[in-house]
Structure formats: C-alpha cells, structure tokens
C-alpha cells in the first residue's frame, strides 16, 4: 500500500496535542508503515510541501505568521483536521480576546516588569487583534475537540481516515477533556 503524505502543524497551542499524539506509543510503529511524515514539529523538514494528504493542526490562529501558514497549508493539503480545543475553539489563547491585545501585551511586558518594561517588537510575528479558531479562517474537514484529545481518539481518527471512512468522534471526546 502506498504511504500517504502526513503533516502536523503547531500554531498557538501548548504542544499538548502533539504529546497526546505521541502517547499512542507502540502504535506509532504501525502508523509509520502507513504514513510519510512530510512536515511536523517532530521532524526536520522546514518547508511545507505540496500535495499533502492529511494535516493535523494544533493551536489557534494568533499571529500574522499563523494566519499565513494556515492559509498556505490549506491550499496544499487534501484534508485538514483541527486537533484539540485551541484549534477547535480558540481555548486558552483566545482568553486574551475579551481584554484586547494591547492590554494583554502591556500587562505582560510593562506592568509586571520591575525595571525597563518594553513590548518586544523585533523579529517576532505580529499578533492579530483577536485569536480565532482555525475554522473561522480556513475550511476545516474534521474536528477533534479535547484539551488534549485522548491518544486513542487521535488514533481512531487517523485509522478511520486511512481506511477511507468518515470518522465520527462524537461522544468519544469533548471540549475541555
């Protein structure tokens, strides 16, 4: 069987979803026989190739870099899965939205600093005014809520997609899990 091209992306999240993915333990070996990891924080590849079959995205869209990345990925992957609450709902990163970006930056870099507080701005992606879940910005094919989604549900989802079926993660995971 031909291996599918598989990628994972890490936007604004804590990497917990990636950790949960790795928690499928020895099943990773089975999986390695079926997928080619062409892009991921877990591998070396620096650029996102074209014609990817399946991409899991962890994290919300928080900066202009996130936005550019996810837009370009959307054009290069057949299926896009929002993995975990940050990608699906905005979750913790989105908690800044109700205060506004500037207030949050000021609090972090100026008000809570004892000497010489300054909002960093060099060589850093610019934050978007609001953090949004992935599907508010690009089309998403499947949703896997959970903070993080349990390893076995991630495994289930990938298995189903590999088998060409539509996964039904309802009732297997939930927001905040």
């Amino acid at each position, binding site marked *: 069987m031909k291996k599918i091209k598989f990628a994972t992306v890490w936007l604004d999240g804590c990497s917990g979803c990636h950790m949960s993915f790795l928690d499928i333990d020895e099943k990773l070996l089975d999986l390695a026989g079926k997928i080619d990891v062409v892009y991921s924080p877990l591998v070396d590849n620096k650029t996102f190739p074209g014609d990817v079959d399946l991409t899991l995205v962890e994290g919300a869209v928080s900066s202009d870099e996130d936005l550019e990345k996810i837009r370009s990925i959307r054009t290069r992957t057949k299926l896009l899965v929002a993995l975990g609450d940050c990608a*699906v709902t905005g979750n*913790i990163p989105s*908690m800044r939205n*109700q205060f506004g970006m500037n207030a949050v930056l000021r609090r972090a870099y100026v008000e809570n600093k004892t000497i010489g507080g300054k909002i960093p701005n060099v060589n850093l992606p610019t934050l978007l005014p609001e953090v949004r879940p992935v599907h*508010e910005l690009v089309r998403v094919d499947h949703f896997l809520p959970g903070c993080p989604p349990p390893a076995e549900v991630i495994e289930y989802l990938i298995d189903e997609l590999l088998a060409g079926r539509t996964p039904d993660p309802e009732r297997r995971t939930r927001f905040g899990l």
Partner: protein
Amino acid sequence: MAKQVQVKTLKINGVDVGGRGDQTILQVAREHDIEMPTLCHIEGLSDVGACRLCLVEVKGINKLIPSCTTLVEEGMEVTTNSERLAKYRKMVLELLFAERNHICSVCVSNGHCDLQDLARLLGVTHVRYPYRYPRLSVDASHQRFVLDQNRCILCTRCVRVCDEIEGAHTWDVMGRGIEAKVITDLNQPWGSSETCTSCGKCVQVCPTGALSEKGKSVAEMSKRRQFLPYLTTMREERE
C-alpha cells in the same frame, strides 16, 4: 388537598405511554426512559421554557412545543427525536458556546458541567458561529462563593431556587437580549448582599461553572443537587 387527576394515554415516538393529566410531556417521557436534553429545567423548580432544548413535535400542531411546560393530553402524538429537532438542539448549544467565554479546559466545572455533557451527547464537536468573546466580570466578593459571568448560560435556575426554595430572592436578571445577566440584589456585589443567606443552593443548581465554591480549582467543582428533590418532597407531604 388531594386533586382528582386523570390518566392520559399518548404516544411518544410511536410508543404508547400513560401519564397523569398534571404531568408534563417531559416528566412522562423521562418516566419511560426516553432521553430528552434539558438545561433550564431542574426537578423541583418551576419551569420557564427558556432553553428550548426540550422542544418536541406534536402531531396536529405546527409549532414546536416545549415539553417541560406542556401538560400531556389524551391522544397526543409526540416526537422527541426527529432530525429537525436534533439539528435545532445542536444549534442551541452552538449559540450558547459562542455567546460567552466557556473555556472548558480551565473551568472549575470541567467534567461536571451540563453544557459540556450535552455538547458531547448531542454531537457538537465545534461551533460554526463566530465566538463573541464579550468582556464579562467575575464577582468574588462573597466569602464562600464565586460568580463567573463568563460561564453563565442564563438558565435562571439560581434565580428560581433562591426565590422558590430559599425564599430570599437575592438573584434576578438585569438587562435585555445579549446584554442580559444575572445579578445579586440590585446589581450589588454578592458579598455585600443583605438578602443572601449564604445557603449555597444557587451554586449547587447551576449547570455550569458560573457559580462555584471558593477554593475549588479546575475540574474540582461538582455539584450536589440531592437537596432539591428532598426539599420538594418534604414540602409536598406537608401540604
């Protein structure tokens, strides 16, 4: 005073069931183990028909009917599980999640929340409406309890339990539409309330993490609701 009650026979989802004439469709359905999602309803308090999750189809009526406030009638044919109803119920939940800041992962009620449970039960895996991210307050002025507006779904269970069971009427609703919110006294800090008896009933009936006990961390706030049916039974027996 013992009232004369008549027995009514009706069909729910094609199955013949019987109930007393003073029972709601919801009560009869639950007695027959028919699943029905509800949020504003809680056994022991009056019903307000506000969350619209318990809507059902009744043959011959072209509007959807809230089963929590509608009494059974002879010969009624009720459908509780059509595709249309399932779709609307999911949409109700989506609207709720988008309305305020329900960040389940850091909520005191994570894992013990009616809203979260229903989302799983009804298959809401994501919310298609833009999240509104309103700026809302947290009132921690009470010695023992916290009100977090971010998690409130305006079911008014707190308002009703405080008025109908405790008799204090500390809680009420202020404002209209999307601006509506629950308040204590005349929108004074809870801690300064002169009517609150600190009985904590509001906290226990609250379906989400909007009302919680102080000192509870993420996922630690599970609610104890046994008192409510107990109190109502005791009252009914006394009458």
